C-alpha cells in the first residue's frame, strides 16, 4: 500500500501492480471531473476532424463527406489546385513573411520589457507602468484598426496632419497604411504595441522564481546591473523563453484572422492577404469552395505540427526540457 501512496521515481518496480484500473478505482472522482472537458474535446475537436475527409472529396458541403465521390488526382485535386493558385502562393508567402517578422521583432519585445520593468526601483511606478502596458491587450483589432485609420491615414490622419503642418509641405505624407512596405511596419508595430505588455506577465512571473541569493552573490562578485541581467536574469528566464519560442514556431504557418482583416485595405492586399484571409474569402465569404479551403487548412496544420516537433527536438538537443 505504502508503495502506491508514495510512488517512487523508479517505474519498473511498480508497473505490474498499478495498472490504469487501480488508478481509476482510487481516483474515480478526479476522472469524473475530467470527463466533461474530455467530452468537450471529443465532441468539438475530434469528431469534427472526420470532416478533414472533405479535403480529398469533391466540393460538397450539403452531403456528409463519406458519401461524396473522391476528388480528381487520387483525391489530391484540391492540394494541387491550391499550389497552382497564385493567390494561395501569395498568401502563403505573406503568412510566412509576416509571422517571421512578428517573431523577430515581436518575440523579444516582451522579454526586453520585462527586464526593464524588473529593474524599476519604485514599486508604484512599476505597477502603474505594467497596467498601462497591459491595457492595449484588451482592445480588439477592430477598435485598433479604426484608431489606426484616424491616426495614420494619409490625408485625414492626425499624425500626417501634424507632419504636414510641421514640414510646411502639404504633399509630404507618411504612407503608414497605403504603401505596402510601410503597412508591414505598421502591422508589426501595432502588434507589438498591443501584445508586448501582456506578454511580459509570464516573464515577470518567471523572474520571481529566480533566487535573490544569486543576485546577491553576483553583486558580491562585483557584477554591475547589466552583468547581473546577463548572467543571472536571462539564464533564469531561459526555460520560459524556450517553451514560448517552441509554441510560437508551431504557429509559423498559422495566421491571425481579425488582425490582417481589420488592418488591411485594397492598396496593400499584395502583402496583407494571409492564409486565414484566403480561406475566409474562398470558403465562407461567398466563395463556397469548402474542399479547397479544408485542404489548405490541413496543409497549414500539418506544417504547424512539423514545426512544433522540429523546434521541440532542437530545444532538447540544446539541453532544454522542451514541451513534450
Amino acid at each position: 500500500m505504502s508503495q502506491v501512496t508514495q510512488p517512487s521515481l523508479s517505474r519498473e518496480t511498480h508497473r505490474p501492480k498499478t495498472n490504469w484500473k487501480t488508478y481509476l478505482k482510487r481516483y474515480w472522482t478526479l476522472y469524473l471531473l475530467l470527463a466533461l472537458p474530455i467530452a468537450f474535446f471529443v465532441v468539438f475537436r475530434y469528431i469534427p476532424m472526420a470532416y478533414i475527409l472533405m479535403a480529398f472529396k469533391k466540393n460538397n458541403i450539403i452531403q456528409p463527406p463519406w458519401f461524396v465521390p473522391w476528388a480528381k488526382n487520387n483525391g489530391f485535386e484540391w492540394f494541387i489546385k491550391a499550389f497552382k493558385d497564385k493567390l494561395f502562393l501569395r498568401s502563403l508567402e505573406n503568412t510566412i513573411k509576416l509571422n517571421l517578422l512578428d517573431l523577430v521583432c515581436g518575440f523579444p519585445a516582451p522579454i526586453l520589457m520585462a527586464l526593464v520593468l524588473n529593474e524599476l526601483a519604485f514599486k508604484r511606478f512599476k505597477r502603474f507602468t505594467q497596467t498601462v502596458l497591459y491595457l492595449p491587450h484588451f482592445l480588439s483589432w477592430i477598435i485598433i484598426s479604426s484608431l489606426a485609420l484616424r491616426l495614420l491615414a494619409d490625408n485625414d490622419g492626425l499624425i500626417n496632419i501634424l507632419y504636414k503642418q510641421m514640414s510646411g509641405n502639404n504633399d509630404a505624407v507618411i504612407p503608414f497604411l497605403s504603401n505596402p512596405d510601410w503597412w508591414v511596419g505598421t502591422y508589426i508595430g501595432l502588434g507589438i504595441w498591443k501584445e508586448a505588455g501582456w506578454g511580459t506577465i509570464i516573464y515577470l512571473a518567471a523572474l520571481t522564481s529566480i533566487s535573490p541569493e544569486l543576485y546577491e552573490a553576483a553583486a558580491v562578485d562585483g557584477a554591475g546591473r547589466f552583468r547581473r541581467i546577463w548572467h543571472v536574469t536571462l539564464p533564469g528566464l531561459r526555460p520560459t523563453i524556450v517553451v514560448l519560442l517552441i509554441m510560437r514556431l508551431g504557429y509559423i504557418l498559422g495566421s491571425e484572422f481579425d488582425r490582417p482583416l481589420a488592418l488591411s485595405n485594397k492598396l496593400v492586399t499584395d502583402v496583407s492577404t494571409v492564409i486565414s484571409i484566403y480561406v475566409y474569402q474562398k470558403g465562407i465569404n461567398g466563395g463556397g469552395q469548402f474542399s479547397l479551403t479544408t485542404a489548405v487548412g490541413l496543409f497549414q496544420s500539418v506544417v504547424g505540427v512539423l514545426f512544433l516537433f522540429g523546434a521541440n527536438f532542437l530545444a532538447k538537443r540544446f539541453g532544454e526540457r522542451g514541451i513534450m
Partner: protein
Amino acid sequence: MKRILALVLALAMLATLGITSAFAADDGFVDGKFTETRHITVRLFQRGDNVPETSPFADYIRNGMLEKYNVEVEFAVGGRWTEPEDLGNLLAAQSAPDICYTYSYSTILNYADMGGIIDLAPYIEEYKGLLPNLFSLLGEENVYWDKDPETGKLWALETRLVNNARINTFIRKDWLDKLGMALPTTKAEFEACLIAFRDNAELLLGEDANKMVPYSTSQDIGWRNNILTVSFVPDDITDEELYIRGFDDRQQFLPGAKEAMRLLNKWYNEGLVWKDFALYGSGDTTEDDNLKAGFVGAFQHNYDYPYRNGDDSISANLKRNVGEDAEFVAVDCFENDAGVYRKYLGSTVDRKVCFPSTNDEILASLLYLDFISSPDTILALQTGTEGINHERAENGAYIMKAVDSADPNYQASLNNIDFTMTCNGQYLGEYTEVSFAYGYSPVDPAVVQNAYVVAMNGGRVPAHFILPAIEAEVGIGTTLSDERDSFLNKAVTAPVEEFDAVYDAGVENYMAIGGQAIMDERAEKIQAATGYVFEK
C-alpha cells in the same frame, strides 16, 4: 483504438444523416386554400438596426397569407450587406429559409451543384395556373431567364427590376453658381469644374479649405466611376462582346476601360480625387460624412444616392450643414466616341429567388411568391398607411413622407424592396409615373425627377443570351471582384508614370486567376449558340 475510431465515425455519420428532406404532396390544397395550416420561412433583409419582422408590413404579409392560403409565414432576418455570404453559410448549414433571395446567382449555382437547391422547372409547370400574379409581374422572360437550355434545370427565378436606372454623376450646383460656372456638359468641362473647386477651396470652404475634395470616390472604383468608364467604351461594341467581357458588372474589362482609369489616375495625382478613398472598406461612412458635411464637389454613385433615406439623406444633411441652396444635382457630361452620354442600364432582372432543398412546402412557397407579386400587395407594401407613410396629391400621386427610423412604419429600403421580394422599384400601376419624384421626401421632387431623366438618357440595356451555365463562373465571383478592386485601387493611386505597369499587371493577374477562363467559356458558348466569333 481502431474500434473506438470506427465507433466515433459511425456515430458522427448517424448524426449527420438525421435530417433528410421529404417531398410534400399537395393533397391538402382544396379550392385555392390549404385545409391545414402550413408553415414557411422567408428570408428578409435587414438594414441598420430596425426590426423589420415586427413592422406593419410584415404583419400585412403574415395576415394576408394566413387568410388567403392558410399559410403561416415566419421571417428569417439577415443583414443586407453580407447577404450572399450569409446565404452561402445558411445553405451550407442546411438551415436556409424556405424562400431565399439574393443578388448572387453564382452562389445559387454553387449550391445547386452540390444538390442544395430545388430545380423549380417541374413545379413551375405544374402550378403555373395558380401563379397568375407571379407570371404577370415577372413575365415569361424573367421566369425562364436562368433556365439551362441543355439540362432544362431552373435553379432560380429572376425577379423584376421595374426601374433600371443605375448610376449618375452628381455635382454641387451651388458651388458652380458661386464660381460663376455653368453645369458641365463634356468631360473637359467637368475636369475644369474639379480644378476650379480645388483652386478655390478657400472661397468655397473657408477655414475648412484643407478638407476640400473636388471629386470623391470609394474603393469600389468600378461602380463609383462607372459613367466615366463607359464613356471610353466604343459606342459600336456588340451585344455579344458586351456579354463575353461582361462578367464583371462594373464594366471594367471592356475596351477603353483602361483609358478611363488613366484619366482618374491623372486626376488623383493632380489632387482632384479624395486622397484617402482606398483606406476605407465598404460600408464605412467616412465618405458619406464628407458628402453630408459639404466638403465634396462631385461624385458618381447610384442614380438617386444623395436623395435616399429621407431626413438622413445626404441632400437633407447638406442643407442643414451648409445652407438651403446647397444641392447635388445630376449632370450628363461624359460623352463617348459617338457623342452619346452612354450608360449601361440594368436589364429587367434584379434579385434571384431560390428554394433550398430543405424546403418541403414548395406549393405554399410558390403561392407566397404569387401573393407578394400581386399589385395590391406591392401597392400596400410600397406606400404604407395614408397619413403616416404617404399623402395623396390631387392627381392621385402618392407623396411619400419622411418617417423616423425608430418608427415601426419606417421603410428601411427604398420602396420597401426588402419586403417586395419579386419587385424592385416603384410599381403603383397608373400612379407610378406621377408618384416617382415624391418618393424622396423631403428632397425637392424636381431634383429627383432630373436625376431619373439624366440616368436614363443614353441608356443601353445589354442583351440577354440564353446559354448553358458557365462552369468557370461558379464560386469565383467574390474572389474576382476583390482582385479587381484591389488592382484598380493600386493603379489609380500610383504615380502617373507607373500607371501602365500597375494596371497591366493587375489585369494579367485577374485574367490568370479566373477572368480569362470565364471569357473563353462565354465566347465558346455564345459561338455555339449564335455563331458569333469573338476576336480579342
